[in-house]
């Protein structure tokens, strides 16, 4: 029998702004711990919140073996590694003061807008996975997000747009410069460039345009034949410029997954060739795949395939080089779109900007976009920029040629 302990500690402070006024300050520290026991190909799990509860949880976890939940895999063992990522940039008081200062500056320069927070937080997530078989993995990821939503005072909408920062560092002047570029562009109506098919850019972290991979490359779906891509491993389905890998660090996840597999860089698609789906150990074993470091588990639950944490590898060109002097569309907010089961894509765009010379040049009318997964990531794939979108951002520009209409 192997006993494994999985601990997740969230330390977080957050500030809320509503109606251009400071509203609240919140602090929380939540510790969750799970104990897993593995015996004869079975797993039993139980957990607790807070500091006390290990003895009872161990009894419950052992008793849960009677449920006969299969785990025909080798639990992680004899591996020790610790990583710390990022730094805690703000205390509660510092975050509060910074939010107040940024709000005051924005209200002064852009009094026509109403601001509210879309996540102003700073904190650290500490995850450990250890066992009596010698597994000892420790991850500490500190990060912040400084997001603001805005709307014109005359607007009847809940929000008109948003901007934010979540990079490794923070600088007020750089944050306000980015905000000013977007707010100024929002006030300047722009015309959609001529043509049906236009270069359209998203943040490379935008789930809307990548959700098809999360759905169709899930190991169980793929292995069972239910995926659009089932049975196509080894085939060149997409543009040579598309390489899709496990990017746990980019997603600010621990370097190991819930089973202790370190999957950073695991290739799902390489040079346009479909390589492998994402999966946990159990799914991998069932279909003969390699575990991709994509297992997820609740603190007191059995591991299963979780999100792919996929990241598209940046290309060699900067955003300006990708534009080649041509105007383009930047999609800031597109909610509600989807891919059909056959791969067709459609979405309304609630907020888009015209981009000229690499800068936001004006606000476009609401748009409709359409394409198909094999076009978007095939002949119409423009790639991911080598540079980040703003000095405080982790995101890069992800571009496609797409059918655009008002």
């Amino acid at each position, binding site marked *: 029998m192997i006993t494994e302990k999985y601990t997740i500690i969230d330390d977080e402070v957050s500030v809320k702004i509503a109606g251009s006024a400071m509203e*609240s300050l919140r602090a*929380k520290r939540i510790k969750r711990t799970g104990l897993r026991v593995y015996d004869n190909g079975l797993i039993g799990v139980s957990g607790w919140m807070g500091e006390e509860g290990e003895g009872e949880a161990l009894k419950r976890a052992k008793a849960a073996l009677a449920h006969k939940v299969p785990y025909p895999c080798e639990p992680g063992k004899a591996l020790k590694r610790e990583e710390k990522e990022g730094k805690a940039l703000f205390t509660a008081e510092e975050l509060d003061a910074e939010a107040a200062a940024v709000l005051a500056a924005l209200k002064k320069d852009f009094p026509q807008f109403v601001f509210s927070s879309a996540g102003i937080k700073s904190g650290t997530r500490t995850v450990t996975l250890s066992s009596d078989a010698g597994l000892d993995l420790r991850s500490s990821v500190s990060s912040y997000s400084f997001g603001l939503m805005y709307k014109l005072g005359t607007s009847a909408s809940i929000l008109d747009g948003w901007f934010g920062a979540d990079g490794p560092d923070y600088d007020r002047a750089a944050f306000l410069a980015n905000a000013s570029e977007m707010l100024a562009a929002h006030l300047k109506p722009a015309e959609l460039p001529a043509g049906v098919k236009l270069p359209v850019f998203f943040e490379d972290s935008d789930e809307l345009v990548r959700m098809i991979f999360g759905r169709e490359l899930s190991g169980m779906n793929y292995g069972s034949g239910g995926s659009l891509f089932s049975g196509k491993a080894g085939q060149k389905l997409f543009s040579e410029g598309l390489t899709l890998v496990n990017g746990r660090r980019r997603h600010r996840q621990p370097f190991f997954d819930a089973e202790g597999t370190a999957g950073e860089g695991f290739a799902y698609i390489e040079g346009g060739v479909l390589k492998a789906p994402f999966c946990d150990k159990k799914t991998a074993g069932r279909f003969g795949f390699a575990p991709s470091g994509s297992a997820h588990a609740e603190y007191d639950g059995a591991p299963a395939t979780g999100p792919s944490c996929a990241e598209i590898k940046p290309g060699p060109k900067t955003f300006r080089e990708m534009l080649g002097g041509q105007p383009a569309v930047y999609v800031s907010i597109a909610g509600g779109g989807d891919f059909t089961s056959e791969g067709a894509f459609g979405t309304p765009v609630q907020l888009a900007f015209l981009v000229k010379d690499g800068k936001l040049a004006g606000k476009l009318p609401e748009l409709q976009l359409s394409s198909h997964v094999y076009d978007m990531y095939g002949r119409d794939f423009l790639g991911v920029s080598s540079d980040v979108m703003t000095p405080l951002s982790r995101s890069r520009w992800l571009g496609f040629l797409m059918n655009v209409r008002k």
Partner: protein
Amino acid sequence: MYKFPEGLFCDVRTERTRSSLASYLKGELRDLRERDTAGAFVRVYDGRRWYYSSVTDLAAVQGEIDRLARLATPDPKIAENRTVRNLPSGKTEPCLVKGRDLRSIPLAEKNAFLTSFFPLVAAEPAVTMWSCFYSDNFTRKEICNSKGGSLVLERQLCGARFNLTFSEGGKTLQEGANRAANEFADLAGFGADLKSCLAKSLDFLRNSKRVEPGKYTVVLSPLAAGVFAHESFGHKSEADFMLGDEGMLKEWALGKKLGPEFLHITDDGARPGSGFTPYDDEGSPARRTALIKDGRLAGRLHSARTAAELGEEPTGNARSIGFEFEPIVRMTTTHFEPGNMTKEELFAGVKDGLFIDTIKHGSGMSTFTIAPSLAYFIKDGKLAGPAQISVISGSVFDTFGQIDAVSDKVELLSFVGGGCGKMEQHPLPVGFGGPYVRVRGMSVL
């Protein structure tokens, strides 16, 4: 009992939850467990700012009250503050679960309920992948505040969900069946739901045709109408979006005409189901709030604070997803009220249109969207085969005026495994549903 600081409002919400889960992937057991959690959320208000803390150590609550109080600026006149006046005082009668307590049902019985449906799914060869779960939770909340307000509230919800992937002849489809209820016995109809889902999905997989993008008359099922009401209008009725926002208040002024006279939308926390919220997380009682009545804006959803700011009454809509979060203004069960014709008459009035039966997801800003799952062509008032649609969308401001028929029976639906998202708080259980709703000129992709 807690010692509350002078010159400040303070409340403590303690939550103890027992939840159960049985989860399977293609018939293989993945998880079977019960979980007990406890935690508290502490709020301190000085009349200008709120200070919050969330803890899992219930013995630490008094320390957190004291710590937050040190951050705040006491106001000797805090009791006269409009927000504080809106918060409950005095002891409220406990609101307890009256039916069969979910905690008393053995995990094995819940698991057996779920596995009883396996033969139905396993017998269909086109179902190449499937997962399912049974989940429930029983929560006991105790809310007490510095005004002497106290409340004990119990709430429970159980449900089952099957996620099915169909594959045949190179085509795939993902669809599912989902039902929730406050009583375990009320899940009894789930087998019929699942059978219907299987039959409709196979028909869709084999016979669906792509819709030509354009403008169509669209009939929304009770599910789709519920999501439409929630996404297109419900969020705009949440008053926290209006604080400090003259434009929003002007545009959404009560009494404003939005649609035809037979159009009524209501939010009601007292409705059984996944949106059941007899008291909110500030301890305010649920109200049946008419949001649209006779086609005109009639009301808004409030917390104590937003009601105070806008000079209206609290509506019992301050909700959180759990003890880690503060209550914010949320919907409960939001739905269209019965309308002006029968379902048959409503369909008969469509010469060339689309029927949205089930959906994958919806969203709503100035433009609302619904991504349909199962949808059908309508020709001369009759269903004319399954239709593949990426998304339907429309302007929130225009679409209510394009509703020209609402059927006369309301069907409310409850779900597990998802819910409403607002800011960082997701998922919050809410109720959906309504009658059938017909809308002219919707944009279809």
